[in-house]
């Protein structure tokens, strides 16, 4: 079963993402509303996650800081940034920080699943 971590300060957005991710088959979803909470969830998940979807603008710890902190210890777990930050400079910054893919809000469920599948396919390859 795929284990997924969704990090977004909007519960509505996390619910939308969860519903879309059901297209992947059986999934187990963990959630966090900011980077600080995400690090706590990650520390408490010894088996890790199949991938994580991370928002950029969040209180307490934003997504780009969270990505950098994750990558200090974990170079392998696929990280997908799901955000309204759409400028090319932001995308480049996120890739340099260590994200594997980027999906810009607003997105359709199909667009989001497409990015997830592409990300996981690269991991396998």
């Amino acid at each position, binding site marked *: 079963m795929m284990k997924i971590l969704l990090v977004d300060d909007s519960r*509505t957005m996390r619910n*939308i993402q969860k519903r879309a991710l059901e297209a992947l088959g059986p999934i187990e979803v963990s959630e966090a509303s900011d980077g600080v909470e995400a690090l706590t969830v990650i520390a408490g998940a010894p088996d890790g996650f199949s991938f994580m979807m991370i928002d950029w603008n969040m209180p307490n710890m934003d997504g780009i800081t969270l990505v950098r902190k994750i990558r200090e210890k974990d170079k392998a777990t696929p990280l997908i940034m799901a955000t309204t930050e759409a400028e090319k400079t932001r995308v480049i910054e996120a890739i340099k920080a260590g994200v594997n893919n980027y999906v810009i809000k607003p997105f359709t469920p199909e667009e989001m699943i497409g990015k997830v599948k592409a990300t996981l396919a690269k991991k396998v390859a």
Partner: protein
Amino acid sequence: MSSIATAPAAKAQIDPKLIVPAMNSVKAVFETMVKVAVQIERPTIKATPGVSYDVSGIIGLSGDLTGSIVLSFPTASATKLVSAFAGCELDPKSPEFPDAVGELANMIAGGAKKAFGFRANISTPNVVIGAGHKIARLSDVPCVVIPCKTAMGDFAVEINIKQIGVAADANR
């Protein structure tokens, strides 16, 4: 629907490069995430200090642009539109309701910010619910109201933005 008091654009000017991106972003967000077509009406300049309606999602801007973008709904429209966005019925008294309003405002501001072409940051959203609330605005630039119509009800986007820096190459 209560009328929105607006003034003819005698002294203040509506800057298309700050308004057109917002109009496009509104359509993209509502058509993609709420799955409702939006008819954008002619933007006008706001004459009164209050917001247009009872429910406001507020995004602040900083950097080379400063000011705010406000997504404003009558309660009835908000209930239908955010419920459609969330994929379930949302009660305006529930904590999920302002969360959904804020996320819609966040996406509209984010999409507009990219198209503005300036280096700017957007705040996390604030949501105010209650008839007659007022929002402090920049007094030296006009507040432009973009009226929007959908099959689920009307709403408005209010833009009060001032350019400080020069247009950046954030998209190159």
